């Protein structure tokens, strides 16, 4: 091998190689080919009497500008500019064996999730009947433990830690099933809605392993959650097409595939898709740009306009919010969405760059959301003082307060940042620190609401 005894020269070559390797259109075998050329050139030049440094300068100059070179490569290999996500192929630094093992584990877990959701049928609990509330309460318990197993397998934190994580799942399973809920009661619906939120935190613990108490770890989990949601929707769209075609084709030959689609295809597919989606997100995180921040950028202006238009209309017509149950939940969702917009724009922002137009827009969004929330809170309070407490109203009120606290402080931090009094990192840290609050509140709803409201 032509190595140069001259140490600094090898260092220079390594530098040059690293610079070339950072170009997306130039693959590592091309880098090897070009490096071979550079070394041949260097050998020839040093033999002709140049010193190492001189030879390097001449050789690099003859090689030409790397910008132009990579542009030429990009023109010739334009497919390389489209990042491809090929599962099962060797990715950087991973042996084929490890990738195959992961594929196997993921497919087994996805199959296990699909079977788990069908397991209650063995005990006579069927879909599409009076037992549907059982599935609603337990939906997250069929899938999230398996997802946790996947991350435990992947991160290998040790058996003891893994067993600790089993505890909350067991508790969730017990609580969701021992409470004597009245049929179709509010507390039952609240349990079904809140249990997944606290269990998602457990998945987070498995996902970040020991990095939970560093901000970066939690932010990574936030990114993961956003990407998983997007992948899940994409998979669901594909599943919808599959379902539609299944129905159409079998009906055309006089069969009714309704029982198969309703009892097998949709529930099993929905369960398995969580595992498959997580695997895709894990595999692609270094390959493809994150989508959630892009959507955030796209929708932040639109939601700002929506909120401002809503406030203006309400001020103009003077009509109060008509507080129905759906309306309350709707406004809670709106606030949650605003928090998500703030969170995901923070997840993708360069903390060092100075405030720009978009940050001002974010502040406007948060402030208008706060104004809308103040109106909603008054409406909820009026309703409670008039008709008394129900589980739904208390839950809606609690969620509203939690989001209000988050948004108020975010607005303060945004304003400080815009006036160069504070850093963006403070805002990011605030959002990240606040995450467990949601899970704690959800756990509170699951554990205490049913007994407090006597399972109404």
């Amino acid at each position: 091998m032509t190595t140069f005894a001259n140490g600094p020269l090898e260092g220079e070559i390594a530098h040059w190689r690293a610079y070339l390797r950072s170009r997306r259109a130039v693959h590592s075998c091309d880098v090897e080919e070009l490096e071979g050329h550079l070394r041949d050139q260097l050998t020839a030049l040093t033999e002709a009497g140049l010193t190492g440094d001189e030879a390097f300068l001449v050789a690099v100059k003859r090689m030409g500008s790397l910008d132009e070179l990579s542009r030429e490569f990009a023109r010739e290999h334009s497919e390389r500019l489209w990042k491809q996500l090929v599962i099962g192929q060797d990715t950087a630094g991973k042996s084929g064996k490890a990738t195959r093992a992961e594929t196997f584990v993921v497919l087994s877990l996805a199959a296990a999730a699909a079977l788990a959701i069908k397991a209650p049928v063995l005990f006579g609990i069927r879909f599409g009947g009076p037992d549907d509330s059982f599935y609603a309460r337990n939906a997250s318990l069929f899938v999230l433990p398996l997802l946790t197993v996947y991350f435990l397998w992947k991160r290998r934190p040790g058996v003891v830690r893994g067993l600790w994580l089993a505890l909350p799942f067991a508790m969730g399973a017990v609580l969701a099933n021992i409470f004597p809920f009245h049929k179709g009661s509010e507390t039952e619906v609240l349990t079904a809605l809140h249990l997944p939120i606290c269990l998602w935190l457990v998945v987070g613990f498995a996902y970040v392993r020991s990095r939970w108490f560093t901000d970066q770890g939690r932010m990574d989990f936030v990114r993961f959650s956003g990407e998983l949601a997007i992948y899940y929707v994409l998979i669901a769209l594909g599943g919808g097409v599959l379902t539609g075609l299944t129905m159409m084709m079998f009906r055309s030959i006089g069969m009714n595939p309704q029982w198969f689609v309703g009892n097998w295809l949709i529930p099993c597919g929905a369960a398995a898709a969580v595992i498959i989606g997580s695997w895709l997100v894990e595999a692609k995180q270094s390959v493809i740009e994150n989508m959630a921040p892009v959507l955030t950028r796209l929708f932040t202006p639109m939601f700002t306009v929506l909120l401002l238009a809503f406030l203006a209309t309400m001020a103009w017509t003077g009509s109060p919010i008509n507080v129905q149950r759906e309306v309350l939940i709707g406004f809670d969702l709106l606030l949650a969405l605003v928090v998500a917009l703030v969170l995901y724009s923070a997840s993708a922002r360069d903390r060092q760059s100075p405030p720009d137009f978009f940050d001002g827009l974010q502040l406007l969004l948060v402030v208008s959301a706060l104004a809308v929330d103040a109106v909603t809170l008054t409406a909820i309070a009026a309703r409670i003082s008039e008709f008394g407490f129900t589980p739904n109203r208390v839950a809606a009120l609690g969620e509203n307060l939690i989001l209000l606290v988050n948004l108020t402080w975010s607005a303060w931090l945004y304003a400080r940042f815009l006036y160069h009094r504070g850093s963006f990192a403070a805002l990011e840290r605030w959002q990240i620190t606040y995450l467990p609050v949601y899970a704690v509140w959800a756990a509170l709803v699951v554990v205490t609401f049913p007994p407090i409201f006597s399972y109404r």
Partner: protein
Amino acid sequence: MDMGKDLVAASATPLVLAILGESESYGYAIIKRVAELSGGHLQWTDGMLYPVLHRLERQGLVEAKWSEAETGRRRKYYKITSEGRAQLAAQRQQWQVVDDTLRGIWMKRCTA
């Protein structure tokens, strides 16, 4: 002599094919051969040869394979294919036409 960019680009394909037509070769040696044949007048930016080689490979005019060089490193060797030879022959005729035409004009002016 400073050659126009377009001319260098246009002549690259026939030159590379012609050199590979002599024998199997690799990037650095092709550059050296070009410099030698042109008496140093035809200077390429070395790196630019490789996208050209990759294009010829994609078009099926040359074949490439990695093998060990005398230096011990891996090196990518290029070999002309039969399609490449056909292409070379076609290009040769085209260049002949250009050459004859220019020669016709310039010779006339010289003799006139």
